């Protein structure tokens, strides 16, 4: 898929663990793992908003378009 999810990069920058982020945004660690590995088919605006709030960043910092 040409949309890359950079949640792990932002997590590393903020020095935040998966468990902590999952708790903050209210999703399971399994779903966070799906998001990080790029297996997710879609992201809800509410989830994106929660991630941006928890990591103190913009949606553009998390999602990136790269041509195949």
């Amino acid at each position, binding site marked *: 898929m040409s949309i890359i999810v950079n949640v792990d990069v932002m997590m590393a920058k903020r020095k935040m663990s998966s468990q902590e982020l999952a708790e903050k945004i209210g999703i399971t660690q399994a779903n966070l793992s*799906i998001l990080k590995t790029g297996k997710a*088919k879609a992201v809800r605006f509410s989830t994106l908003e929660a991630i941006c709030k928890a990591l103190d960043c913009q949606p553009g910092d998390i999602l990136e378009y790269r041509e195949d």
Partner: protein
Amino acid sequence: MNKKLKIYSTLFVAAIIVLVTVNAVFVNFQSHSYCSEDEKLEFAEVPAEYVTCDTLADGSIAKNYKGEVSFEVYVTPKRGHEERALFSTSGNQIFKVDMQRVKLVVPASKNKLGNFPVIFAIASAAVMLFVGVWIFCLIFKLISRVRKGEIFVAQVARYIEMTGFLLTALYILQLIVSYILTQYLVRNIQLACYDIVFKNDCNSMYLITGLALMIISQIILMGKDLKDEQDLTI
């Protein structure tokens, strides 16, 4: 639209149109033969070649049935015999008796048709039984999956598609077997006043249900895609 779904739905509509047309327009497919003068259709006592009656010591009668071969066929009055018919007169009521599906029985010792019809009928019945058991197994597997709550999964769609395919194949097989047997009997049996005709008496519900199941399988596959998408939405 899914390519298979397009094909199956087109086949479904085509099958319905063909079935309706065939039943409405072509009642049967027949081949006529001309009657000879010595032909006779009569109600008579059963000859000893079919059954013999023995009187036992206590005075009762024991019937001894001989081995016989029978063929079930559709018949229609021969050309030139349309103005003649069988009539039943009983009391004040008279009924014209229209023969359609009849059973022709010959003593096994006088069967001149050879073993082909019997062997062919047994072989095709065995194939149909095999297909029937296969369908039963597929339905059993399908129900077991559904009971586990697995509905929108590829395996269920495959079971339904296979069941539909087998039902359709069963219909076509029945049709072919019936046609071949009838044609063989038409060539080898001469009936007085009646012609043997081929008539499609296969249950069209097999075909309709089979094609409908094939369509449903594709709908389940589409549902599976939607479910996967829903499950992977974070």
